[in-house]
C-alpha cells in the first residue's frame, strides 16, 4: 500500500492547476451513432466549422455497436408513413409527441438510404434491393437489418464516413465531467484526458450531448459498462429537466446472469417463447391466438411490444412456470424449427453469443432468456429540434427525450432515431455556431478550475465507503423498486436508498491516486452520474400514479389514467439538490389515445 501513498503525494506536488485549454465551434460528447451522425451533419452543412467529437471511448466502442436487430424505415409499397406513425404512437402508449413522431417517420427511410450510400451493408433480397424483417409492435415489416449486427454496421459506417470530413476532429478517450455555463448559455465543458489524467477546458458555441442511455443503474442489463448516463447527469446538474425517466424498457430476451442481448430479430425471424411446460405462454396475455412456429404474424404473440412480453415473463415467474437455470429463472427462446441455414444467415451473431456465453447451440437447443434492463425511453428534455432549455446545449439519441418513444419504445425505432435526430442536432448546432456565440475560454477558466478541483478532490478521496459496494447496492435497489412491476413500498424504499447512497457517495474512498488511465477515478465519477440518473428515475416513477407502457404499478395504480397522466414527467434537480417532478403536456396531433391492440385484436386496428 506504500505505492498509493507515494502516488497521492506525487499528485499534490504535480498540482491540479495544469489545465489544458481548447476551443471549437461545436463539441459533441459521445461518439456513438447519434454523435457521429451529428458531427457529419454539422460538417456537411458548414464545412468551415471546427467540430470536436469527444468520447470516453474510441467511437467504434460506443454501445450503438451492440444493437442487433435492425433500424426502422418505411420502404415496402404496401406500407405507409401513417402505419409507422400509428405503430409508434400506440407502442408508446400515446405518450409520444406526435409532431416528433411525424417528423421521425418522414425522415427515417431517407436516413437509412443515406447510410446505404455511405456503405452500410444492409441485408439484401436476391434481386439486390433492400430487405426488411418483422419486428415487435410493427404491423408491417419495415425493419432494415444487416444480419444481426445492425448497430455494429451502422456505427462503423458512420465512424468511417466521419473520417472523410476535415472539419471533424476527435478527442478519443476524453471523459466529460462537467458542462460550463456562462450567462445562461452552455459555453463548453470540462473533460479529463484519460491517458494523462489532465483536465481540459473546451470552449464551444454549441454542445451536443450524445452519451447514450443509463441502464447500468440496473443489476441485470443488456448494456455495456460505459452506458452510465453521463450526459443525462451532466444536463440534470445544470437544472435541465430529465423527462419520462420512469420509462425503462426491459428487453424480453437477455441471457440470464449476464443480461447479454438476444435480439428481437430472433422472434421476427420466427423464434418462439415457451415456458417450462413447453407452452407458448404469450397467448395467455392478450397476444394470442397462437401463430404457427416459424410463421410470425405482425403484432401477435412473440411480435408483441417489449413491455408486454417482459410483463408476461414476470407473471409466468410468479406462477412458477419458468425454467430454473443455474443463472436464475428463464424461459426458452426456441429457434430450432428455423433450421441451421436460416439461423446462420440471419442470426449468426446470436448463435455465436449463445454458444460462447451459455454453451447452447440455438440450432439444436432452445436458448434460455429472461427480461433485462435495456433502454431508457426518457432522457434530457429537448424540443422537437433537439435543443434543450439551456441555450447552446443540444441532446440526441438515447440520452435525450425528444418525445419519440413515449412510454415504450418499439424495437428498431432507436437506431433510426440516431440518424434522424443526430442529423437534426448537427444542423441545429451548426446554425448556432455560425452565429459566433463562442465565449472566450479565459472567462470559463474560474468555474472550470473550481470544478476541476472537485474532481481532483474525488481522485484523492479517502473516506470509508467503497465504490463497488455503492454501485452494487444502487443496482440492486433499482432492480427491486423500479423494475418491470413497481410496488409502492419498494419504490419508496428505492427512493430512500438512492438518497442514502448519494450521501454515502460523499464519503467515498479511492485506492488509486494516480492520474494516468485511472479507471477507479473515472468509475467513481460515473457512479456519481448513475446515482443522479437513478434519483431522477425513482422520483419520476413514484410520481407517475398510473400504469402505462413500461411503467406498471399493478398494486396501487393498475390502469392508465389519461385524465391526469397523459403528460410527460419532468424531473429537475433544484438548487439545493432536491429533486422536483413536474409535468408537461404531450403533443397530440392526430391520434387520440386509445387502447393498445396486439394479438388477434391487432388485425382490426391495422386498417386505420
Amino acid at each position: 500500500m506504500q505505492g498509493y501513498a507515494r502516488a497521492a503525494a506525487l499528485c499534490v506536488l504535480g498540482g491540479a492547476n495544469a489545465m489544458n485549454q481548447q476551443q471549437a465551434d461545436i463539441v459533441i460528447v459521445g461518439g456513438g451513432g447519434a454523435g457521429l451522425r451529428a458531427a457529419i451533419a454539422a460538417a456537411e452543412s458548414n464545412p468551415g466549422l471546427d467540430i470536436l467529437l469527444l468520447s470516453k471511448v474510441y467511437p467504434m466502442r460506443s454501445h450503438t455497436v451492440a444493437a442487433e436487430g435492425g433500424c426502422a424505415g418505411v420502404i415496402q409499397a404496401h406500407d405507409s408513413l401513417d402505419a409507422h406513425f400509428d405503430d409508434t404512437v400506440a407502442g408508446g402508449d400515446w405518450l409520444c409527441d406526435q409532431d416528433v413522431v411525424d417528423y421521425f417517420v418522414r425522415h427515417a427511410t431517407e436516413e437509412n438510404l443515406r447510410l446505404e450510400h455511405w456503405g452500410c451493408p444492409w441485408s439484401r433480397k436476391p434481386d439486390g434491393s433492400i430487405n426488411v424483417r418483422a419486428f415487435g409492435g410493427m404491423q408491417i415489416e419495415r425493419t432494415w437489418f444487416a444480419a444481426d449486427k445492425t448497430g455494429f454496421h451502422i456505427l462503423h459506417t458512420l465512424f468511417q464516413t466521419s473520417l472523410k470530413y476535415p472539419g471533424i476532429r476527435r478527442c478519443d478517450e476524453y471523459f466529460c465531467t462537467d458542462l460550463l455555463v456562462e450567462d445562461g448559455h452552455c459555453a463548453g465543458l470540462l473533460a479529463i484526458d484519460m491517458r494523462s489524467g489532465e483536465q481540459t477546458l473546451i470552449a464551444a458555441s454549441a454542445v451536443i450531448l450524445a452519451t447514450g442511455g443509463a441502464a447500468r443503474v440496473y443489476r441485470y442489463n443488456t448494456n455495456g459498462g460505459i452506458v452510465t448516463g453521463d450526459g443525462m447527469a451532466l444536463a440534470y446538474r445544470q437544472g435541465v429537466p430529465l423527462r419520462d425517466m420512469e420509462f425503462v424498457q426491459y428487453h424480453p430476451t437477455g441471457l440470464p446472469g449476464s443480461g447479454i442481448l438476444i435480439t428481437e430479430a430472433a422472434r421476427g425471424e420466427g423464434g418462439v417463447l415457451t415456458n417450462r411446460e413447453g407452452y407458448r405462454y404469450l397467448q395467455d396475455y392478450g397476444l394470442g391466438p397462437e401463430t404457427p412456429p416459424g410463421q410470425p404474424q405482425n403484432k401477435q404473440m412473440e411480435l408483441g411490444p417489449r413491455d408486454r412480453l417482459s410483463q408476461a415473463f414476470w407473471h409466468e415467474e410468479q406462477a412458477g412456470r419458468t425454467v430454473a437455470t443455474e443463472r436464475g429463472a428463464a424461459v426458452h427462446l426456441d429457434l430450432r424449427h428455423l433450421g441451421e441455414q436460416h439461423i446462420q444467415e440471419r442470426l449468426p451473431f446470436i448463435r455465436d453469443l449463445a454458444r460462447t456465453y451459455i454453451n447452447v447451440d440455438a440450432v439444436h437447443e432452445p436458448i434460455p432468456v429472461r427480461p433485462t434492463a435495456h433502454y431508457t425511453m426518457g432522457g434530457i428534455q429537448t424540443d422537437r429540434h433537439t435543443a434543450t432549455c439551456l441555450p447552446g446545449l443540444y441532446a440526441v439519441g438515447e440520452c435525450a427525450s425528444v418525445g419519440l418513444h413515449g412510454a415504450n419504445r418499439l424495437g428498431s425505432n432507436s437506431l433510426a432515431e440516431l440518424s434522424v435526430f443526430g442529423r437534426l442536432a448537427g444542423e441545429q448546432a451548426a446554425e448556432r455556431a455560425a452565429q459566433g456565440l463562442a465565449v472566450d475560454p479565459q472567462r470559463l477558466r474560474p468555474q472550470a478550475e473550481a470544478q476541476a478541483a472537485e474532481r481532483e478532490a474525488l481522485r484523492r478521496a479517502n473516506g470509508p465507503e467503497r465504490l463497488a459496494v455503492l454501485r452494487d447496492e444502487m443496482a440492486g435497489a433499482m432492480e427491486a423498486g423500479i423494475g418491470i412491476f413497481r410496488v409502492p413500498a419498494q419504490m419508496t424504499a428505492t427512493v430512500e436508498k438512492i438518497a442514502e447512497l448519494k450521501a454515502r457517495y460523499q464519503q467515498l474512498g479511492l485506492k488509486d491516486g494516480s492520474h494516468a488511465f485511472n479507471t477507479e477515478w473515472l468509475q467513481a465519477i460515473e457512479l456519481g452520474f448513475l446515482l443522479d440518473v437513478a434519483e431522477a428515475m425513482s422520483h419520476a416513477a413514484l410520481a407517475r400514479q398510473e400504469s402505462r407502457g413500461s411503467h406498471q404499478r399493478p398494486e396501487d395504480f393498475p390502469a392508465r389514467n389519461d385524465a391526469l397522466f397523459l403528460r410527460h414527467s419532468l424531473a429537475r434537480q433544484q438548487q439545493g439538490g432536491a429533486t422536483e417532478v413536474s409535468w408537461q403536456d404531450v403533443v397530440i396531433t392526430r391520434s387520440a389515445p386509445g387502447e393498445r391492440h396486439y394479438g388477434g385484436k391487432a388485425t382490426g386496428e391495422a386498417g386505420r
Partner: protein
Amino acid sequence: MSDTIELAVTRYRPEQDTQPWEQRYTVPCSDDMSVLDALNYIKDALDPSLSHRWSCRMAICGSCGVMVNGEPKLSCKTFLRDYREAGVLEVRALDNLPVERDLVADISGVVEHIEAVKPWLIRHSEPPVDTAHSQTPAQMARYHAFSQCINCALCYAACPQFGRNPAFLGPAALTLAQRYNLDSRDEGSSERMPWLNAEEGVWSCTFVGYCSEVCPKDVDPASAINRGKVASDINYGVNLFRLLRGKGDA
C-alpha cells in the same frame, strides 16, 4: 465455489514504475467466468488500482483485448475454465503496442493506420437521395467477412511484422481498404491503391497468418492482405505499362 485460479497480471503504472512487473491475484473460478469477469473481480474486490478497458462484454465493441498466456484474446470471450489445467493465467497488455498503463495498450497508432486508407465509400457521383444502390447477396458476400472487423487490434498484437515496424499499416487497416475496394458500390480503389502499394502497405506482410488465427470475428485479414498483394501486383504491372507508354504515375 472454493474453486480458484491464479492470475499473473503484468502491471505498469507510469507514475510509479520504470518498467512492467508482475502481480499475482487469486480469483474465484467458475465455468461461466470470463477473463474479463476475473479482471473486474480484481478491480472491485482486490485491487481497484488495476486498469483495463472493457464495455460490451459480448465480443462486439473490441475494447478488452489482452494477451492471455501469450495469445491475443478478447478477455470477454476467453474463459477461465479453459485454463484450469494450466493453473496460472498470465495476462498482459496487447503485444507490439505501447503500454499506457497496466492492461491498457495505446492503440492510437492503429487507429491512425485505419484512418489513413480512406475507409469510406468513394463515389464519383452521389445517387439520388431516395434510391439505394443495388447490391446482390453474392456481391455483398465478396466483402462481407472483411466488414466484420471490430478494430480490437488483436491482429496487431499477433503480427510480428507490425511489432518489427510500427509504420506497417497492419492487418485491420489493410483489410478495411480491401473491404471497400471489393464493395460493388465503391469507385475509390485507385485512391486506396497507393497505400496498399507502399512498402508499409501490403508489402510488409510475410503471411505469418497468425492475425487470422487470433481474429475473434473470423475476418481473415491475412487473406485480405495477400489478395491485396495480387491487386498491387497487377497495379504495378499496369503502371509499368503506362510508364512505358509515357503516361505513368510513379
